[in-house]
């Protein structure tokens, strides 16, 4: 597996590290060697292993569907952690300016 400088720069962006062009070129060579070495993973018998399929969750918003539980979950510890007063499932926070009415 050969990685090039452009792919390394893209990976560096994904993992939020600043890698300049010279470093990216050097890393491309080093990573390619390591991945070549890792190709031997395909040599063995994988029959005793995991199914070679990655199950991915659908890439879509996942809304929490139990708002009562969500609000209630903070009732036990919210106040001492500075979340303000909790009455029922209503969290009262300090006013930003002036007195609360």
């Amino acid at each position: 597996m050969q990685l090039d400088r452009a792919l390394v720069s893209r990976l560096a962006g994904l993992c939020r590290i600043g890698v300049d062009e010279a470093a990216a070129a050097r890393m491309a060579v080093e990573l390619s060697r390591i991945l070549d070495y890792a190709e031997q993973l395909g040599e063995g018998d994988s029959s005793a292993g995991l199914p070679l399929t990655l199950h991915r969750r659908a890439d879509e918003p996942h809304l929490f569907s139990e708002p009562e539980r969500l609000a209630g979950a903070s009732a036990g510890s919210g106040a001492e952690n500075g979340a303000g007063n909790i009455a029922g499932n209503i969290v009262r926070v300090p006013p930003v300016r002036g007195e609360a009415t």
Partner: protein
Amino acid sequence: MTAPGQRARQIAAEVAAGAAPGLYAGRALAAAQADRLNAFLHLDAAHVERQIAALAADPARRRGRLAGVPVAIKDNFMEAGQPCGCASKVLEGYRAPYTGTALQRLQAEGAILIGRTNMDEFAMGSSTENSAFGPTLNPLDPTRAPGGSSGGSAAAVAAGIVPLALGSETGGSVRQPAALCGVVGLKPSYGRISRSGLVAFASSLDCVAPFAADVRDCARITAVMAGADPADSTTVDPASLPGRSASWEAGPPESWEAACGRGVRGMRVGVIAEAEGPGVEPGVSSALDQARAWLQAAGATVRTISIPSTAQALACYCILAPAELSANLARFDGVRYGPRGDRTGGAEGGVYEHVRGRFGPEVQRRLLLGTFALSAGYADRYYLRAQALRRRMIAEMDAALQEVDLLLSPTSPTVAFPLGARAADPLAMYLSDIFTVPASLTGLPAISVPCGLSGGLPVGAQLTARLFEEAALFAAAGVIEEALFAAGAGQAPAAR
């Protein structure tokens, strides 16, 4: 400096009998301050004095199993109020908010934590050259590396500064430097010692692991730290496991020191066939042959055994460890951890890159590799294949350990290598761990014990046992240690 021959158990006995509780910690601190190996990153004399004063005022702890024993700590363990930098510029100035479980247990038995030791940045490396604060030198030959990533702790024990030190293991970071420095290093069973307070690298592999000047001390410090802990859900009480063996090999931590003198009569030892070959230095092979002969002479049955998947163990590790660390190191973002500098007013991407740009080249390399191995289109080819191989390796190792009680191999294919010799070739550096990663990937306990010299440098023999059967390791390592001493040659300065 700890007197030659002075072991942790002897110090604890002296303190229990009335010796000044700070005597040895004071000597160790002075030796650490004079250290020219760059083994220590941080020493805090006032903190040591406070620990000594607290010990002096506590009669129960003065009778503890580690009473007054100076212990050096790798720079990736949390101790409240002390720096915890993982030898990285990313954590410069960070101080730990709490003390982790393993350190709490050491202190509860009277240990004095005397300082923080050098390491490869975030425990990634096999030579301690990846530290942001310069390499540690091997005390047996300062032109050579002490191994890594826990090289500072290994050097501190080998130099006689402390009788005990803590390191951490992900793929061999205690056993390999133990072998290269001529001391004892143990990777316990996964789940044996709580990782609470240990900065995470690859969570399915990470273990707290000790160094000691001899096997009995290693058994003692491991026993002190062992046990289930609610703060680490991977820890277990082995006695509660279904089908638990009642054999002496599965004995509780209290039995481990006695196991060191039990011998190996009747035990079955398998020499791993895949760990013999052209990549192993002749001097290392000769020393291992000697260890094999000593075990046979002590009554063990020794034969060669093949575990085919171990030949691909390093390839498996090269994918799985970076994949896990690429997730674990996401927290060093300048918001939760890491200095923001003066960029708080800029875009968040600027803060991230400012902080994460402080990672050294090896950490960056592994972050890139892990991100790639998990990316769509390549995860099946690399990550899932590596997981499949890991599962097969677990099955093969378990099967082998039904045929034999212990596995024997070299800890490292070479003796300590010159500083800089592998720095430009990451793959050559990774190959230093080729024999240690199988136990890491399978969760099995393994120990490295000195078994001779090659070219004047120490060689380590590695023993691997069934899960939670550390007692078997201590028994066999004790035989090798005794035989080496009886041979009158080959032991490193701290080996006796």
